[in-house]
């Protein structure tokens, strides 16, 4: 675990030493705040629903930019061989990289807290709903990051990794929407709804924490990180 933490902080240092982190943070905050404020005074309700409602879509476009280079860039520059021969287990290396993205995301989410304080000052905000929504957002983003990391591990071009991640995330986004469900047999619809990240996120952001939703997100994170480990171990063998 110590190796994973060391690696995570090394990744974070690299990330903050380049302009990408700051561009990401500013674009994300600017877009999400602007989208939220364009509707909140019209609705006239003390709620952050408008803000959290946009996050799944914004994350689809923005989070792949964090994960796209995680493995692809290592492969392209040839440093992956060096990384995989370090005296550390593959799992530790994956956890290290994943932890770095998670810490970065947590920081980004913390920067959205001024919005909560502003809305609290403008009316009676339901703190339980806000907590549930943050928890949902956190788990949703963690799943997106795990998926992005896995996709980055199967290609050595970070642009390809970005595009595939966006497409797959978008697929998971629309999987339970009428756009898809109107074309599949009725019996499949509950399965698709269960697989939809959005449905579980929506349930949490109502302010209800259900073990089923948490378990779903944890399963998704575990599966994608595991697939990531399989891809790397195959590479090691090859």
């Amino acid at each position, binding site marked *: 675990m110590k190796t994973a933490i060391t690696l995570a902080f090394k990744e974070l240092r690299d990330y903050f030493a380049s302009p990408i982190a700051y561009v990401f943070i500013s674009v994300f905050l600017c877009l999400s*705040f602007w989208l939220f*404020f364009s509707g909140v005074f019209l609705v006239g309700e003390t709620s952050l629903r408008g803000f959290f409602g946009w996050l799944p879509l914004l994350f689809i476009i923005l989070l792949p930019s964090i994960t796209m280079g995680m493995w692809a860039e290592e492969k392209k520059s040839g440093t992956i061989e060096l990384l995989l021969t370090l005296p550390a287990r593959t799992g530790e290396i994956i956890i290290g990289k994943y932890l770095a993205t998670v810490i970065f995301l947590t920081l980004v989410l913390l*920067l959205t807290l*001024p919005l909560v304080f502003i809305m609290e000052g403008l*009316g009676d905000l339901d703190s339980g709903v806000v907590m549930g929504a943050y928890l949902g957002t956190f788990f949703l983003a963690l799943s997106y990051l795990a998926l992005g990391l896995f996709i980055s591990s199967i290609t050595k071009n970070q642009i390809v990794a970005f595009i595939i991640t966006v497409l797959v995330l978008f697929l998971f986004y629309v999987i339970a929407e009428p756009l898809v469900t*109107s074309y599949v047999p009725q019996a499949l619809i509950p399965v698709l709804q269960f697989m939809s990240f959005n449905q579980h996120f929506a349930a949490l952001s109502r302010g*209800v924490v259900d073990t089923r939703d948490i378990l779903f997100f944890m*399963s998704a994170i575990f599966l994608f990180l595991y697939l990531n480990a399989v891809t790397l*171990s195959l590479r090691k063998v090859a």
Partner: protein
Amino acid sequence: MSYFYQNITRNSVIVILIFGIVIAVNILSAKYHTRWDLTDEKEYTLSPASLKILDRLDDRVTVKMYYSKNLPAPLLPIRDRVDDIISEFKAHSQTSFVIEHIDPDLNEDRSREIEALGIAPLQLNVVEKDKQEVRKVYMGMVLYYQDKRQVIPAVTEVQNMEYLIGLSILNLTQKQRPRIGVFIGANQSKYLLIDKIVKQLGELVPIDASTKNLDQLNLNILLVIDPVEVTKEITNQWDTLIEKGAALLVFSGTIDVQDEDMTAFEIFSGVEDWLGAKGLGVSHLLLLDIQQNAQAGFQAGLMQVYMAYPFWIKALKKDLSDTHIITAGLEEVLFPWTNVLDIMGDKNNPWKPSVLVTSSEKSFLQQEGMTGIDPQYVDDMTELPVFKKYPLTAVLKRDNKQGLIFVTANHHMLRDGFLQQSQGNIIFLSNMIEYSSWGDLLIDVRSRGKTARPLKELDPEKKSRIKWVTTGAVPLSAIAAGLMVLWILKKRRGRRIHKLLT
């Protein structure tokens, strides 16, 4: 087989196994799960009121749920949520609570049988495989208790589900549903929704000016809306009803506005003396509020213009009594073209008033002699208004005696257009009826989480400032921090290179 291919095969088997285990764990979790409701008002947990209703049950309740199997995808989460609520009722019930899922589309006979129970099919527009079709689906339920049944014909909204089930159980376990008389004096065609609301809460008994012997109708509640030229004979009958323990809900203003042509004229309701004897009066002027009001649409040439209309007063949480169960859970009630109550404060009067709703401290009455209702009314005023809080609704009670009177100095608020516009008005009326029928048993369930949490009233300039400062300040700070870090790193790197070279 090479080591590489052996590895692929082994990994594939492990991946499939892990997928299987994860799926199995998720399926199991659907059966054994726990929920934590974090919402302030515990909106997704059975309320103490529902638990109290369940405690009263002394026999089995059977809930038959009729959901079509071909429900469109957007309705499936509603079905699941309703299942969750019903399961919670079952989990908290001391007696047996049986849930049966019945396929309503099994055959023609089944469908006919269900429709005979009162569950009508919903006709939904469904787009599937590039085709639009009208689909007939059932989404209803029937609750059985002893030899009685209650039908919930359509379950299309989750929010009021707990309330509807609680009300159904209450109705099943009561010997008789409350009898609610409805007397609409004028403009009957503008109060069509009232019947629907009342029928849900009890047995509707239509009353008009010619109805004799009110006291023989066994009414529990009499709802009086927009009364005009009520005679002494009628108010005497009301008094007899009150003496027998009934509740009277009076919605009466002294100015009537026809919203089609925006004309306002004074009306003689006939209840003035009757109310006066109980220590209440109704003003002859309308109330205005330049801050706490609703938007109204006005025709300006070919365009419809929406603007803040000072004659549509909003009473917010701070203006609603938090000590009375009727208003305690509400967030907002709309009072369009409202008069105000005049509380005489005669200590010798046996009827003691308590105010349920007031206007804001920034409200004021029309100027004497200026009876217009234009949106620009305030600009035309020649005298400075006197700002103060005015009582809009009060309840009258007597010590140690039965009978209640709720008086609201406004009748417009119950017209169809305003009930559709403001959910708070429906809840306000329903709470009054429920309180008069069941006490405070169901009000908790109805009010929580149903009305919006309004934002503070802000002027457009302040709104704009909040919007742009927040949208700009946080991202700009991130950019500034980033530039500073990058500058420090660059400087450090430069120093290191300089050190190496020298």
